[in-house]
């Protein structure tokens, strides 16, 4: 774990309101597994004060994150240019625990949840697997990095408005996939509502499922106690260091609960 005063080395715009920022980071600086994240803040003065959490899209000599502009922090980051300064802090948290028992990987992404799952899909490809990748969004403009995914995975897209792929929610192709009988494992990342639905479908097929949660964060490393999520037994888990990736039962309880 490191914090770096670094600079943006490349910016691309993979979809409307999305930027892929790449920053200088020696290979040894940010070793990461898919699902791990960094806290990032630009040199933008007193507002907003807190850094923002972003999943790493890849590991290596450069860090890269996908930013969707939804509020003040992400708008500032999305409008940054090559050579702008960043403070980057990471890699943080616990990523996906990649199954090595031969289960078929099914990756389910919603919106910017695609970021860690592209990283995961590439890891799996590097291990010789070609995962099934279900990618859902509201509309065609919210599907960044779909081409990159198609290179390493079997891609199925759904949009709520039907502008690309199947019309509807991502749980429909997930139902179909898990019904085909193959022993699978689900890795998912996206809005909290979607995660819960994906976990529910997985559970109904007795399929293990790992969810990557979001929570408002300050420190990103377990010291502020800000990112608590309540779990079924009444205690709390901390997204930044117990997660962000959890086994679905830890968060939503086992089937009979």
């Amino acid at each position, binding site marked *: *774990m*490191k*914090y770096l005063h670094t600079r943006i080395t490349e910016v691309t715009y993979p979809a409307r309101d999305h930027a892929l920022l790449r920053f200088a980071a020696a290979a040894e600086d940010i070793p990461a597994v898919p699902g791990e994240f960094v*806290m990032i*803040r630009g040199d933008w003065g*007193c*507002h*907003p*004060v*807190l*850094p923002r959490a972003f999943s790493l899209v890849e590991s290596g000599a450069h860090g890269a994150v996908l930013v969707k502009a939804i509020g003040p922090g992400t708008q500032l980051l999305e409008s940054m240019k090559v050579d702008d300064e960043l*403070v980057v*802090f990471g890699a943080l948290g616990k990523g996906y625990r990649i199954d090595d028992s031969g289960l078929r990987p099914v990756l389910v992404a919603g919106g910017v949840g695609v970021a860690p799952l592209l990283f995961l899909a590439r890891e799996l490809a590097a291990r010789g697997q070609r995962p099934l990748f279900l990618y859902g969004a509201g509309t065609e403009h919210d599907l960044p990095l779909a081409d990159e995914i198609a290179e390493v995975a079997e891609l199925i897209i759904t949009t709520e408005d039907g502008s690309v792929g199947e019309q509807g929610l991502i749980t429909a192709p997930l139902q179909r996939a898990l019904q085909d009988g193959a022993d699978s494992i689900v890795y998912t990342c996206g809005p909290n509502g979607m995660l819960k639905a994906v976990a529910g479908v997985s559970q109904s097929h007795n399929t293990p499922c790992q969810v990557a949660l979001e*929570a*408002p*964060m*300050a*420190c*990103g*490393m*377990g*010291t*502020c*106690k*800000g*990112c*608590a*999520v*309540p779990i079924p037994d009444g*205690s*709390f888990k901390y997204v930044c260091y117990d997660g962000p990736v959890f086994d679905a039962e830890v968060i939503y309880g086992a089937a009979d609960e």
Partner: protein
Amino acid sequence: MVPLMSERLRTSLGPLTLANPFVNASGTYGYGVEYASFVDVARLGGVSVKGISLLPRPGNSPPRTCETSAGMLNSIGLANIGIDVFLAETLPQLRELGVTVIVNTFATSIEDFVELAARFDNETGIAALELNISCPNVHAGGMHFGVSGAAAAEVTGAVRAVTDLPLMVKLSPEAGDIGEVARGVESAGADMISMINTIRGMVIDVDRRRPMLGQKMGGMSGPAIKPLGVRMVYEVFQQVSIPIIGMGGIASLRDALEYLMAGATAVQVGTANYSEPGISLRLADELEAWCSERDLTVTDLVGCAQGD
């Protein structure tokens, strides 16, 4: 890089001497040990650990943080590991690392404050005890001690009676008259004052039509509150003769200089640690450079904006 003991930066707070005036503020730096792998925590002026209570506390219902204009709210609820685990596991690590440890404690009754102090008094490796009589995020007690001079004096005096540790009392900006509270804790035997804790605020999520935080209100920190903290340090400096550790919104060298010039002998850095966990060391380096350009010491700066 500032040497561990720079003559310019060394600052003396009565019974406590710090190698430099930058202490990381309670609740914003965990127990300090978490940062040891990438921040030279022994070089910090000190670390005020997350507020410790007799029993571990799970904290409040989430969401626990949200942002405000140039600031943030938190309603953590003093989630902490409790004194037993702290003494058994954390303090030995801090000693090992060579950290200047300020133990921030929290309780809802005088008896519990006294018990905490008595237990810490027996330990080695504690540079000072900081009483948080001003946390806005707990229902019972907590801030009540911090809003009146008499109540603050009572808890300070009771703790003073059981410990010889350097004693720092942390004041709340919500006191109607913070000078009165400061005088109260001074007269009851506090060695130092730290100020300010957070001030309660609320953000409403207008889409959900409900307060953003699970606890509805939270303590505000960050640059937004800096003018309050500087003003209060300036006021309290005129009313007490014990040293003051200033805080609230420090995120740059200029911010720290404002506090020192207002009358603080040292400062704490809180919210800014989240964006840059090594910020205190960077600011110490910048302060060393600033002072040496002008051939000044930290002590020369303390309260230099008072007067006229």
